[in-house]
């Protein structure tokens, strides 16, 4: 009876697992298929049995000039050589920089709000949060005009600035809650022990806050990495990121499913790996308030 119950449980677990991971598997499998295998009306599921895996798609997106993507006539010569590779680099730079900036400034802001009495504190915190209430697309046109005038279109700096400001409120709110939970006696003890406040923050508070910083970093990375609308309209050429590129592959004529799948896999990988690396911190960061003595 108990064994049957357990078996049932694992069967259910297996079904759920398949339900959630099959789409991912389908993308990964497709990325290793030739075009004929991808568009075959009979699903080809098992590598080496149903189809012969190939790395051609990966080779194509990394090393061959784009030929079938619908970039339009405005594509510059440099982007034409290997669109995906450049865009991946752009995505890494823009996401990395904006995440670092958002976590750095957000952590400092949150510390100040948590520890010091600030006039109109709750109003300020609401104001910070309210910037998240508008979906980015609403501000797209004004931002476009603004960036056009300031010469920030198609630049790293422009998108970094935007993504940083989108992620800051989130970081500030999460980190403030976190700092509120860290007894201020810790840094006061360090100050009594002969350290300045900055040294106390750096030596005592930050090591305590790392889990929360890792958690907010993951969320910032996901937001910046996946952002499509602003990236698509503001950075079309040299500083363009991966999401608009993926869209552009679908764009015109026959869809290169294999390349699209390969690009998607490469695109998803960094976030998965980073999240995996900080998973212990992540759990502690998110559940912090709940488990503390």
């Amino acid at each position, binding site marked *: 009876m108990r064994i049957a119950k357990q078996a049932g449980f694992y069967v259910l677990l297996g079904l759920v697992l398949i339900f959630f991971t099959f789409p991912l598997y389908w993308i990964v499998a497709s990325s290793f298929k030739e075009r004929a295998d991808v568009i075959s009306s009979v699903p080809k599921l098992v590598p080496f049995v149903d189809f012969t895996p190939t790395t051609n798609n990966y080779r194509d997106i990394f090393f061959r000039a784009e030929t079938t993507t619908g970039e339009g006539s405005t594509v510059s010569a440099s982007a034409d050589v290997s669109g995906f590779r450049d865009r991946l680099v752009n995505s890494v730079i823009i996401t990395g920089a904006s995440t670092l900036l958002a976590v750095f400034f957000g952590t400092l802001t949150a510390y100040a709000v948590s520890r010091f009495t600030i006039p109109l504190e709750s109003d300020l915190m609401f104001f910070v949060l309210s910037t998240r209430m508008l979906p980015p697309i609403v501000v797209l046109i004004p931002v476009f005009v603004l960036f056009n005038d300031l010469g920030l279109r198609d630049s790293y700096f422009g998108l970094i600035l935007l993504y940083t400001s989108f992620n800051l409120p989130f970081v500030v709110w999460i980190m403030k809650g976190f700092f509120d939970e860290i*007894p201020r*006696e*810790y840094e*006061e*003890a*360090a*100050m*009594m*022990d*002969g*350290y*300045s406040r900055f*040294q106390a923050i750096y030596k*005592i508070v930050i*090591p*305590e806050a790392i889990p929360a910083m890792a958690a907010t970093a993951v969320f910032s990375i996901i937001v910046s990495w996946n952002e499509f609308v602003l990236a698509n309209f503001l950075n079309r050429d040299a500083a363009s990121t991966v999401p608009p590129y993926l869209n552009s592959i679908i764009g015109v004529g026959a869809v290169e499913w294999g390349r699209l799948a390969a690009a998607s896999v490469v695109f998803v990988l960094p976030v998965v790996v980073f999240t995996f690396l900080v998973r212990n911190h992540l759990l502690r960061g998110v559940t912090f308030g709940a488990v503390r003595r």
Partner: protein
Amino acid sequence: MSSLTITNLSKRFGRKQALDDLTLTVKDGEFLVLLGPTAAGKTTTLRCVAGLEKLDSGTVALDGAVVNGLSPAERDLALVFQTYALYPRKSAFENMAFPLLARDWPPDRIRQRVNEVATLLRITELLERRPAQMSGGQQQRVALGRAMVRNPRLFLMDEPLTNLDFKLRVEMRAELKRLQSELAATFFYVTNDQVEAMSMADRIAVLDHGKLQQVDTPERIYDHPANLFVAQFVGSPRMNTINCRYDADQAALISADGVLKLPLTDAQRAAVANATDSSALIFGCRPEDVSIHADGTVDGKVFVLEPLGDRTFVDVHVGGATVRVRAAAAYRAEEGERVRLAFDLPRCHVFDAVSGLTLF
């Protein structure tokens, strides 16, 4: 070690006046206990001295030199927190070494000094443990050790024993007193436990609502409280109080319901004459200054007995008031039994009900 002088210190948080014109001196090598109920401003005083809180007005001086503008680090004081505030990621050794690292001591000297202090505090076997792996009493010792390693100018202690269990608290009281005299250190110690204050202090400063009530030796605080608040706050069980008036014709103190009637001496009469209103007086006597005795002058009725082994407290109804009497351990009586009470009048007090001040 240094002396500490606090002059006209005031501090408010929003609308609340946390400290009101506090002036207090802690002498070099003295164990001064700042005693008061919760929210009296004790911790605020300590934090102002430590430099963790900005003063609204007044000065804090060490050895006569004003330190108002100095950061906590520059003041070179040690503070033991009520919660100990040990760094959770550091071992006991690293916790104790942390203040020395700030002073750029070489590693071998740090090791030597930490071991020295650990031996003194009997925690050498704990040095590799983290705070989470130690009991409250052990953490407390490490926190003390962190304060002691560097010979600070002053030890500030914020209710360091409050979070310990009773047995440990009693042990640590003696231990702290021993350490203080061994180090010849200046201790500025905050507590709301009057037993702690009485047992450890060279002098006690009583604080209430941000105002200093009295500063004196434990004996003087106990025997000659400056006002009703001090009289009731110090001593356990607390002092009995009965609302009274002074009757000039009978030269006696008479309770509101007339049951209590105590003739006063000339000196006491003169003291009572200073009252704001001689019909609004409060008579106070400690349980040990009243006894159940056949020769007593006041009638009462036994209400409840509380035998404690070495003594018995007896609550006696005197008219509408209840007087707690300290009786011998073997004393027994039935509820409702009629007894006579004898007051040791020279040890009793009368307070001005309007101002709260002690008249005698």
